[in-house]
């Protein structure tokens, strides 16, 4: 059976390391030619904001990692349509996002759902 990996990021960036380590796992699986996608939900949708300025808290921006994600083989960046609507114009226009109706329907399309 070929595996399909969905990595769920449900916490805001910068407050802890779990999102970065989730992204590392996703990039690693993609580097080994696996089918990989990311889902941003809950507080995790704040990863998708444009104009992030984390320098003042001495962190690196996560936007750059996300815009490079598809270059490194991650197939899609998913977010539910309702959560995308809530973000409105705050969303980073440089990100190619795929909107879905519900997270549950999306998760059912993957063999491995990883939520750290």
């Amino acid at each position, binding site marked *: 059976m070929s595996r399909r990996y969905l990595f769920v990021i449900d916490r805001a960036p910068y407050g*802890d390391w779990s999102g970065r*380590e989730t992204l590392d*796992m996703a990039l*690693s699986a993609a580097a080994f030619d696996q089918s990989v996608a990311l889902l941003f939900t809950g507080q995790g949708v704040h990863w998708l904001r444009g104009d992030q300025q984390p320098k003042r808290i001495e962190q690196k921006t996560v936007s750059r990692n996300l815009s490079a994600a598809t270059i490194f083989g991650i197939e899609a960046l998913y977010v539910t349509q309702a959560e995308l609507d809530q973000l409105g114009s705050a969303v980073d226009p440089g990100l190619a996002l795929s909107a879905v109706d519900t997270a549950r329907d999306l998760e059912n399309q993957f063999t*491995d759902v990883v939520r*750290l």
Partner: protein
Amino acid sequence: MIAEDAARFTLVITGAPYASQAPQTALHFARAAISGGHTIAQVFLYGDGVHLASNLTSPPSDETDWPAEWRAFLNEHQIPATCCIASALRRGLLDDSEARRYEKPASNVSAPYQVAGLGDWLAATQDSTRTLYFNGGQS
């Protein structure tokens, strides 16, 4: 006892001992799985879970030494265990060779743990019927 549908599990632990319940829950699961005739293919420590690999933990004598319990369990059942190198280096969990490479004065990770990369995790997920993640509390 051999289960009719024996499973091969990979366990990923991302919560640290003494900060979360993740290592205990994972150990209880692993013991139950083995006594039920299932197999633990691989244990992978990731994120804060790498603290479980420290061989310097010294809890008070009336508390369980969870890293020691885990080491004994892994040795008894000959289960391969990997401590993620990227997570470990950031958090000061080093084996002898990494301590030499980074010119550090001490090391605190040794067998049964290998210090290696996410490739071990990926290979284990593909070699298992199911991969379970034991996380710490939401921060």
